[in-house]
């Protein structure tokens, strides 16, 4: 029992409530949100430290023992994602001060922001699949409102697509949960892992395959994998840069996390049935993402496509199925959360400064703000996977495990899509950054720029700082990620932490009337 396991949930919840209480005082809302985001980042670091030896922090809510109650469990995988959530939220929040108008504050921007973090962290920290569904809905509800908060026609249109597609994904998830419960009688992740392993060693796991497929579809829609990615490029670029950065950093990665947790751990004994299917989806996403980024006419859209490519790479790591490849997937997702959100902020800053992120008209940012251009170049090169940046290390790890598993196709696709995304980055660089901005009548607009403002500069500086920390610590992070991958393949520690007395049998459940709390306890015998 470790109350710390609830901390990533309680902090943003508290911030949401305080923001709601301070409805008429935007300054206090800002203060509370910043404090909560800073605390989340520090907490993420602390969680990384306390799970370093593979320990799992478990909280059985109101002392109901697993699998009867709700379990919160933070292992290394959760800690990775919780840390990235903290960092991305802090960066996006500071940047958002530049764009959030008093009108948006009156519409409840800050409570929604914190509620989104509440849902995201809930999804990362829960130890129960139905609970994960609930957290998905919490984060989706906030994201729906955040996406349409400005209320422009374009956003309303994007909002409808986004809400409908996510409703479908939730529906698939819920059906899968019903089927899973019907077959296994539990939804606790640790208990499910045990039961699936039991059934598959008895050779009776075949009915679970369609359930796995449904879960795969549900999470792939969230993660924007190949056949289900079409909603993303149209919707993500529509809100303001801070919100796009937040969505790009967190929401698709929630899908990746769920895929890693469910297909990488719970249904791992059945992995042979999914892996080829999943690998194809991953490879096609990498290809489409890279090609889409090349064909885009605005930088935001190109970045949205590069998210799809990145998710594809993470899922390729998952599909390869070894401890190393899962570790590679974890590391790649972790670094791409920081890098992608940073890139969206940089492009937002370019738009704020020069009024355009259109590849045709150019922005001339190389002349007006060379530092911004340099920042863009570094982040974009990391995205494309150029050494020595973390994106390269992630790709290299996936490539290594592809070579080890003798999957020629994966190797070729990773390399070719890497080249294509480098080409896309070069295209962005020459068309957007390098090209002077020229008006229709031929006058050079490169020098006519707006000042960036403090909030944007601080946000970008924080983003650069996070990136720098990532680069410096990438060696440790890779070691940790590989350990995480190994823990996913062999989840003994997770199971024994959540179910210290093993899976309960009916005989072990003692008469509730004999103990004063009225709760069910299990004999230790």
């Amino acid at each position, binding site marked *: 029992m470790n109350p710390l396991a609830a901390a990533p949930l309680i902090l943003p919840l508290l911030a949401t409530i305080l923001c709601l209480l301070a409805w008429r005082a935007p300054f206090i809302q800002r203060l509370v949100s910043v404090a909560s985001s800073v605390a989340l980042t520090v907490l993420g670091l602390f969680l990384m430290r306390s799970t370093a030896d593979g320990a799992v922090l478990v909280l059985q809510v109101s002392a109901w023992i697993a699998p009867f109650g709700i379990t919160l469990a933070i292992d290394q995988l959760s800690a990775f994602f919780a840390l990235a959530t903290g960092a991305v939220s802090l960066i996006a929040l500071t940047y958002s001060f530049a764009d959030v108008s008093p009108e948006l504050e009156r519409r409840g921007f800050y409570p929604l922001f914190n509620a989104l973090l509440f849902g995201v962290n809930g999804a990362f920290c829960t130890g129960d699949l*139905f609970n994960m*569904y*609930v957290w998905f*809905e919490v984060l*989706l*509800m906030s994201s*729906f*409102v955040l996406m*349409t908060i400005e*209320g422009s*026609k*374009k956003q*309303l*249109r994007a*909002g*409808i*697509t986004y*809400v*409908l597609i996510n*409703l479908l994904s*939730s*529906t698939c998830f*819920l*059906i899968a*949960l*019903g*089927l899973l*419960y*019907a077959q296994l009688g539990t939804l606790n992740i640790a208990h499910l892992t045990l039961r699936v392993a039991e059934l598959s060693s008895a050779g009776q796991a075949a009915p679970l395959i369609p359930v796995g497929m449904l879960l795969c579809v549900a999470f792939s829609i969230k993660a924007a994998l190949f056949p289900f990615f079409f909603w993303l490029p*149209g919707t993500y670029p529509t809100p303001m840069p801070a919100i796009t950065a937040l969505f790009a950093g967190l929401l698709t990665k929630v899908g990746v996390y769920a895929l890693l947790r469910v297909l990488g751990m719970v249904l791992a004994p059945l992995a042979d049935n999914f892996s080829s299917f999943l690998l194809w989806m991953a490879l096609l996403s990498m290809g489409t993402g890279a090609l889409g980024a090349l064909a885009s006419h605005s930088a935001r859209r190109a970045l949205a496509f590069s998210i799809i490519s990145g998710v594809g790479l993470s899922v390729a790591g998952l599909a390869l199925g070894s401890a190393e490849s899962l570790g590679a997937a974890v590391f790649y997702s972790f670094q791409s959360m920081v890098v992608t959100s940073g890139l969206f902020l940089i492009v937002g800053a370019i738009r704020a400064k020069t009024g355009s992120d259109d590849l045709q008209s150019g922005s001339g940012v190389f002349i007006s703000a060379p530092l911004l251009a340099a920042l863009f170049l570094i982040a974009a090169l990391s995205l494309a996977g150029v050494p020595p940046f973390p994106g390269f290390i992630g790709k290299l790890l996936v490539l290594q495990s592809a070579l080890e598993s003798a999957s020629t196709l994966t190797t070729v696709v990773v390399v070719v899509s890497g080249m294509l995304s480098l080409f896309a980055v070069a295209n962005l660089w020459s068309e957007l950054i390098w090209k002077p901005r020229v008006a229709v009548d031929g006058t050079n607009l490169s020098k006519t720029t707006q000042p960036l403002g403090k909030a944007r500069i601080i946000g970008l500086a924080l983003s650069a700082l996070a990136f720098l920390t990532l680069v410096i610590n990438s060696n440790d992070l890779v070691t940790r990620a590989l350990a995480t991958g190994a823990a996913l393949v062999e989840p003994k520690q997770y199971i024994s932490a959540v179910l210290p007395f093993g899976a309960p049998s*009916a*005989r072990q*459940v*003692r*008469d*509730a*009337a004999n103990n004063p709390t009225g709760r069910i306890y299990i004999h230790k015998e």
Partner: protein
Amino acid sequence: MSSLFLSIVMGTLFGSGVYLLLRGNVARVLLGILLISHAVNLALFVAPEVGPRHAPIISTQASTLPEATTADPLPQALILTAIVIGFGVLAFLLVLVQQAYRAVGSDSMAALTEEYPKVEYPKVEYLKVEDLTLRDGTSPNIVERCK
């Protein structure tokens, strides 16, 4: 028997829901979502064995629940949660659709979800003969020259 009946109902709901979802009118799409969410709730409902069962309350002397005769309370809790969440999301969706309808002025899904870029042709200004000047500064009076 009852679960066979429920399965048929569920299938009908799913089928009609998907049919409505594929229509081009936003009101039908919303109804489709509604039907599908009902179907999913039913799917959760039939997850355990369905039939006349006792409430899952344990007697003071017993140490276990007689599994064969007691109902499983968990799916009902799950359905309740799913209903509440579905209700909330649907309420938001209704408001969103209404707002979008006001902004777009159409209830077709195509108009509500996609923006067709308006093609704007560049405005071409033709030169007039009177505006031209010759190298020596005089204007070319074509009519006179023709004479």
